[in-house]
């Protein structure tokens, strides 16, 4: 039984890495621009079609197609910020959020028109032997997901701690007005934050594609869990998003194994209410104190 539980937990961590990657992107965009990006999953999905077309029609190797999808996602995120949201900088925040909702529906519709709604299979991304850890087994896909989460988590931490651009983004998060007056090109850094955030969504989407197949709504469930992971982590904390995603993956996998997959979403949201009741600012969030 213990071994079975550990296997479930391990698979859950791998699944949770997709939620964590999605949540990291959401938090990165939210921290920089204060906008909750409801098009986050759809933008990752749209970039996945780039990888799909390159692999299925042009037989491009997976790694190259993956890289192309990330570039496409970065450009998509940066353009959405620079073209649409920058113009709405002084508009009510709700207007900006509604733009992302509209974009979500637009992208799913456009991809549906272009590629149809039938799932299109994506082959396994890497061909390595499963990793055996004692009695536990990790699929190659799981290894790739966890490894990428680890690498990107470390890279993001280094980016924010040790680069001028990362420090600039943290300054924008804290005080956009002062950041601009300190010589930080706020528009450019916001575009970079959006581009990077959407690229993280694309990492999750491309990695999920062999399991979900490529469809316009392939990210709908993952992005909802990404939101939950970000909230559990204390929306705003990158570390919280990462840990929240991994915890959520284990929880979802346990529900799938011991109850029923159809109940997972309902139970997860029930647990979310409980977590927020006990810790309103999430596990890693800090209470918002306003001095008067």
């Amino acid at each position: 039984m213990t071994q079975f539980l550990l296997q479930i937990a391990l698979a859950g961590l791998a699944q949770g890495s997709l939620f964590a990657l999605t949540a990291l992107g959401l938090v990165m965009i939210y921290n920089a621009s204060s906008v909750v990006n409801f098009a986050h999953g759809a933008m990752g999905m749209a970039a996945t079609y780039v990888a799909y077309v390159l692999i299925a029609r042009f037989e491009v190797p997976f790694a190259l197609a993956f890289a192309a999808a990330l570039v496409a996602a970065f450009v998509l995120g940066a353009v959405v910020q620079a073209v649409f949201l920058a113009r709405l900088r002084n508009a009510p925040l709700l207007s900006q959020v509604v733009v992302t909702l509209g974009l979500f529906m637009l992208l799913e519709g456009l991809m549906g028109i272009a590629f149809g709604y039938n799932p299109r299979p994506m082959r396994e991304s890497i061909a390595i032997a499963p990793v055996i850890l004692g009695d536990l087994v990790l699929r190659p896909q799981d290894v790739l997901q966890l490894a990428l989460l680890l690498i990107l988590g470390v890279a993001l931490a280094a980016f924010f701690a040790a680069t001028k651009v990362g420090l600039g983004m943290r300054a924008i998060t804290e005080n956009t007005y002062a950041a601009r007056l300190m010589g930080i090109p706020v528009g450019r850094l916001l575009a970079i934050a959006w581009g990077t955030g959407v690229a993280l969504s694309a990492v999750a989407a491309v990695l999920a594609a062999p399991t979900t197949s490529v469809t316009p709504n392939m990210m709908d469930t993952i992005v909802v869990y990404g939101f939950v992971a970000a909230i559990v982590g204390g929306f705003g904390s990158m570390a919280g998003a990462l840990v929240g995603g991994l915890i959520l993956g284990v929880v979802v996998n346990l529900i799938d194994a011991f109850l029923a997959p159809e109940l997972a979403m309902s139970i997860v949201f029930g647990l979310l209410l409980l977590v927020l009741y006990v810790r309103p600012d999430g596990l890693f969030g800090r209470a918002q104190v306003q001095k008067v």
Partner: protein
Amino acid sequence: MLEARGVTVRFGGLVAVNALDLDVPDRGIFALVGPNGAGKTTLINALSRVCPVAGGTVRLGDVDVLSLPPHAAVSAGIARSFQRAELFPSLTVLENLLVGLHSTMQTGLSGALMTPASRTEEQAARARAERVLRDLDLWEVRNAAPADMPYGHQKLLDVARALVSEPALLLLDEPFAGLTEAEAPRLLACIRAAGERCAVLMIEHHFELLEGIAQRMTVMDFGQKVSEGTPASMRTDPEVIRCYLGTGRHRTAAASAC
């Protein structure tokens, strides 16, 4: 030198700064004084590109300041502090200063890779930040978050962040407001030193303090220049007495620092 001609700032129907001319030489301490609502902070905001200017020209050396986007003002040599400290509350004191050096640093993403160029640049930036923090007695709290510091320290940090970029024109908006008697002398010494390297244009209400450090002062009222000259000449100027000085006085922490 700074050369402003006919600077006008409007907020709807209100003319906050009205066709104001101002010359500030390359070095020295210059003051903007006047009653509340005179347009002093609005003028500083216009010079630092915070608010749009309806008319006039501003040149700093060869640079047409009004053609710059706000974030380019620092690169052009203009740094400022704020009436209420505008800090990055969760970043450390040291990081706040490094943000102030953002426009002077060349290496971007390569910082994370610790390339020799980025290491050298970061060491130089940290050395500059350390020098300014030591001058203002803030080095001991370099790893603290401003949100956890007393207000006087926050004001000092706000000025330190402007100083660290080694600007050609340093704009200070009531830098002594909220400082204790122990903190004011440190800031005064820093401003005196800065005035030997660059032009300092400072809004300040403590006339006695300005008499000790300012070469010249411009008195504003209702968005216009009322008078201009040495502090001694302003003290006896009937227009300045009418609109600003009045007849009463009180000493403050900042005045005691002189």
